[in-house]
């Protein structure tokens, strides 16, 4: 529940919190923790995805196209994880935590924008209305090839490490493809459930999803995320992000110790 709550407050998938908790605190093997985390990612993202779709913020056409790459990456990542030593997975997760910590405290970079129009054979242009001032925001999407390549990596990370992959998808859509930040976050959220599903199916087929553990984690993440989305506007997100970034560096160090066999 804490993972879902913090995830929605910090704009993260719950996996970043769930996996260290399950492996470092409760002593579960990495693969079991990843299997459970993917269920939590589906549970916490699905509720908010439906909200963003109804609000018209998600670029569904772009999301579907990028999902070809993220689902493929997720299946490949999950297959690699199934056959990878859990100490190597712990080290990879430590690297992901460090990257996430840097990403959280970094200042936002200026977004480039494109006029609506076709992007290769597809027109992925979209628009949404800003709730605050009623302004209609129209944008075009470019550099689909680069976006697809990065999405393959984001999907691979999701399947390999049990996270949503939004930490890659959002900046890629925003900085490279010209999607406004709010639409990029909503589109990423729309994609996360399907990306996690592709990896989760592999873990399920390999018997790496422990039903009780996955059930508890999914239910907690779902209700935590639902509560978090309601209280998010009352909390100073920037302060919380900085504090959490420091905690992530500490947890990354613990994951490296686990990878080195120093910790159980």
């Amino acid at each position, binding site marked *: 529940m804490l993972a879902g709550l913090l995830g929605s407050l910090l704009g993260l998938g719950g996996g970043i919190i769930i996996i260290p908790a399950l492996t470092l605190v409760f002593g579960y093997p990495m693969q079991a923790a990843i299997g459970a985390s993917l269920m939590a990612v*589906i549970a916490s993202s699905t509720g908010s995805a439906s909200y963003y779709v109804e609000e018209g913020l998600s670029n569904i056409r772009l999301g*579907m196209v990028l*999902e070809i790459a993220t689902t493929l990456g997720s299946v490949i990542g999950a297959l690699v994880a199934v056959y990878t030593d859990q100490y190597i997975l712990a080290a990879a997760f430590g690297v992901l935590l460090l990257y996430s910590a840097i990403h959280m405290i970094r200042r936002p970079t200026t977004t480039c924008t494109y006029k609506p129009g076709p992007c290769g054979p597809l027109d992925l242009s979209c628009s949404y209305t800003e709730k605050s001032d009623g302004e209609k925001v129209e944008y075009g999407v470019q550099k689909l090839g680069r976006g697809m390549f990065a999405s393959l990596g984001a999907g691979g990370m999701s399947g390999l490490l049990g996270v949503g992959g939004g930490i890659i998808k959002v900046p890629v859509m925003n900085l490279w493809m010209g999607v406004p930040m709010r639409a990029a976050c909503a589109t990423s959220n729309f994609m996360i459930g399907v990306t996690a599903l592709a990896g989760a199916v592999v873990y399920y087929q390999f018997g790496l999803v422990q039903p009780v553990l996955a059930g508890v984690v*999914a239910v907690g993440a779902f209700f935590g995320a639902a509560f978090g989305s309601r209280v998010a506007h009352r909390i100073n997100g920037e302060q919380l992000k900085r504090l959490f970034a420091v905690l992530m560096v500490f947890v990354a160090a613990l994951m490296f110790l686990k990878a080195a066999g120093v910790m159980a």
Partner: protein
Amino acid sequence: MVLVIGMWASMVLLLAGLSWYAIAPSSSDITLGPVEAIDALLSGDPIGLIDLGILFLIATPLLRILTALAVFAQTREWKFVLVSVCVLLIITLAVFVKG
């Protein structure tokens, strides 16, 4: 709407299964698959109900792709129909990967 219904259905199944498990713990904690989960449920094993909840949870984003596919077909956006079919094929591929 599809997402919300699927999500709540899986949450209800998971909460019921976990509550049942808390009262009468099962000796096993492995995923069973849809047919075996129903068999386990009928024979009074809470893992069957939890596993069904997990399968509902997994199926919810899948329903979302099917819905998008239907909408694209209805609006005759054939390129996006093809895109949706590609995503479905990749997920189907994952189903047939067995340990």
